[in-house]
């Protein structure tokens, strides 16, 4: 009998996986490239024939000619479009940064409440989560802007909270520090404190490696910085003076005024995102198996040590990736600011500048490029972090 090896019998080329693979790739590439070229040529001819313009970013140097409600850097209508774009970008950063901090705090509180053994407390948390995860963010934002902050009393009848904080339909006035001449020196002292703290934690870590007993390094770092900062605060002639808002006529004076739009956007984002973060936190804590806690107890660790050394590090591994994607979501969701009139990146660039200049392609390239680089940067950092904390398996 003649033996036939499988390797000797070649299938016909149309059933050969390798040929099929190359063929299907070619097909997909041709389709994608073809579509891209088709759209691109349509766009170029359309632009040339209808609008008689070519793609160029030179308009960014022209004067913007419009005002922006609030800005972190100095801006006026004589400044360039590029400057306006940066103002929007900084406003986005501002709201995203504050939103992330407060949403994380609220989310952790609610996530932990959800796991409480107290029936009432865990019920309140789960109702909160069920309500806000199932309502569209945009509805929530517009609700806050139009049904809450717009309905606040006039300035003369403002609601006054201790602080003093004035709530009125013009926004929220809070006390704010005004830096004095010695502020710069104080910052230098604080910087020195951070350097000193880093040195202290390095020494402690080395000592820990030698003795095998790791001290609470982060705590010591913070204590060092705080101590140096306190010394600087006492020695220097008052680096910051407190400026409290007060009523004067039909307006509040002094302090810092957070606009109604800013407050509505910020509170909407916080309340919405916190519901999602709470679920992330809960899932993370629940992911640590019961055996871990029992093993720690039988090793003689006390509850605080168990939490710090066993539960928390393992929960964090589960929590961090989805938490980061929530942060990204919050940042991207801040583009809904356009619905309530807060001048963020999208509202300034995608609406005002675009309408004034008609430069669709250039503006969308810039907007999407900005958001895209932000999220790619985050996922890059995330991947590095994930590699570091990955479970080392056998």
């Amino acid at each position, binding site marked *: 009998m003649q033996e036939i090896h499988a390797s000797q019998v070649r299938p016909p080329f149309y059933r050969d996986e390798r040929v099929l693979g190359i063929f299907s*790739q070619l097909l997909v590439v041709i389709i994608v490239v073809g579509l891209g070229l088709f759209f691109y040529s349509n766009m170029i001819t359309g632009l040339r024939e209808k609008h008689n313009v070519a793609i160029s970013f030179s308009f960014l140097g022209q004067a913007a000619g419009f005002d922006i409600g609030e800005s972190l850097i100095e801006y006026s209508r004589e400044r360039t479009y590029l400057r306006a774009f940066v103002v929007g970008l900084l406003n986005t950063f501002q709201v995203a940064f504050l939103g992330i901090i407060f949403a994380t705090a609220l989310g952790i509180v609610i996530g932990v409440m959800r796991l409480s053994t107290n029936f009432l407390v865990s019920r309140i948390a789960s109702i909160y989560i069920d309500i806000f995860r199932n309502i569209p963010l945009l509805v929530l934002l517009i609700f806050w802007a139009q049904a809450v902050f717009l309905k606040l009393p006039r300035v003369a009848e403002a609601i006054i909270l201790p602080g003093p904080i004035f709530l009125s339909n013009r926004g929220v006035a809070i006390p704010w520090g005004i830096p004095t001449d010695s502020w710069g020196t104080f910052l230098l002292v604080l910087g020195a404190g951070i350097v000193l703290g880093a040195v202290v934690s390095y020494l402690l870590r080395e000592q820990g490696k030698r003795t095998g007993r790791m001290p609470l390094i982060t705590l010591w770092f913070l204590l060092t910085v705080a101590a140096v900062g306190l010394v600087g605060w006492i020695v220097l002639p008052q680096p910051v003076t407190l400026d409290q808002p007060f009523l004067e006529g039909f307006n509040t004076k002094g302090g810092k005024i957070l606009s109604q739009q800013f407050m509505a956007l910020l509170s909407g984002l916080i309340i919405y995102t916190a519901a999602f973060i709470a679920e992330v936190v809960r899932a993370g804590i629940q992911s640590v198996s019961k055996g871990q806690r029992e093993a720690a107890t039988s090793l003689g660790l006390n509850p605080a040590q168990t939490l710090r050394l066993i539960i928390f590090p393992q929960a964090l591994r589960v929590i961090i990736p989805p938490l980061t994607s929530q942060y990204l979501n919050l940042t991207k969701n801040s583009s809904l600011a356009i619905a309530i009139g807060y001048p963020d990146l999208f509202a300034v660039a995608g609406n005002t500048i675009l309408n004034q200049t008609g430069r669709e392609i250039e503006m969308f390239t810039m907007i999407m490029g900005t958001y895209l680089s932000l999220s790619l940067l985050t996922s890059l950092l995330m991947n590095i972090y994930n590699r570091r904390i990955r479970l080392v398996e056998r």
Partner: protein
Amino acid sequence: MTTAAGTPSDRSVLPATERYTVLGWLRRNLFSDLLNSLLTIVALAFVFFIARLLLRWAFVNAEWGVIPANFNLIMRGQYPAVEAWRLWLIIYLLGAVVGVMWRLISGQFSGAARVLIAIPFVLMLIPFFSMGTRLNLLITAVASGVGYAIAGYLPIQRRGRAAAYLLLAYLLVMLILLRGVGAEEGPMPPVQPILWGGLLLSLLLAFFGITLSFPLGVLLALGRQSKLPAIRVISVVYIEFIRGVPLISLLFMGQVMLQLFLPDGFPLVDRVLRALVAITLFSAAYTAENVRGGLQSISRGQYEAAQALGLSTYQSTMHIILPQALRAVIPVLVGQFISLFKDTTLVALVGIFDLLGIARTIIANPDWLGTQPEVFAFIAVLFWIFSYSMSYASRRIEQRLGVGER
């Protein structure tokens, strides 16, 4: 199984079930120690405060008159009132289709079926509905009962396939009824999609967004896992690009730039359709990432076993890999669909009158100045009901399929 080992004898003692008296339950869950009691008291005070605030507003201060007065607008937007019978016909048919599908797929009249059949009757209780509306709801309920009864007599072999065809046929009929055919003076004059609005449009956008983005997302997920480098790169670039930008920028781009990409003289694409394209392309990238999670959860052994059995790549994907992968990610996918449904509100920002867009026109109406809290609370509740039922249904399906148990 042999009877020798493992049959529980009658004398075996079951673990004691815990029984509490009311006081015992309170003590254990609310007042187990000092800290817990303190927490309970603070929480009670908080609940009381919030509840009083909400109830006082809802029953004393709120002016709910704005809702009945604009109810038709909220439900169907600018869809002409004379053509409303078409929408009712769609709803009757929906009732009938649900009845038939229930018989084909589930086969029994269980708890969830009772809830479904109760919906029209509960809606009939809404005080400001006219008698005509109530009659229409009754017809819907009857239609679903008739559908359920008839389906029992159908000599159908492949129930799943029959259900799929029925659904497709329903979609076609629905679109024809909505859009209309023939001349302006005919029995069913065309209604432009820009006139569709309110809840009708929100549900349509969500439904078609889901059905169109799902296959695209599965393809992209398979592409990302593919061994073929060109396909993988294209999928990765698409997914990462879309996930990196906010939906609102895609929607604006669709409105402003889509026409620019198309050849000169191409008919103007409808505004609603442009939004649907943006939503679909956006959601597909997220679906792809979710499905990829399912694909990654499948052990190599499954691929190898399929190969050893002589299945082609296509066969093993369709019959071995995808069914398992999709079942593993049902909860995540439903979560994605819920967020798509919520994201349809963004079309209100590009001049389309979905539920939120209609709400904004109502509060801009001088007759209803200052009714923002009532209108927005109402549509928030509407959105909530739909999203919450979706997530509830997904939890039930998950239990039935035994995800995470097998």
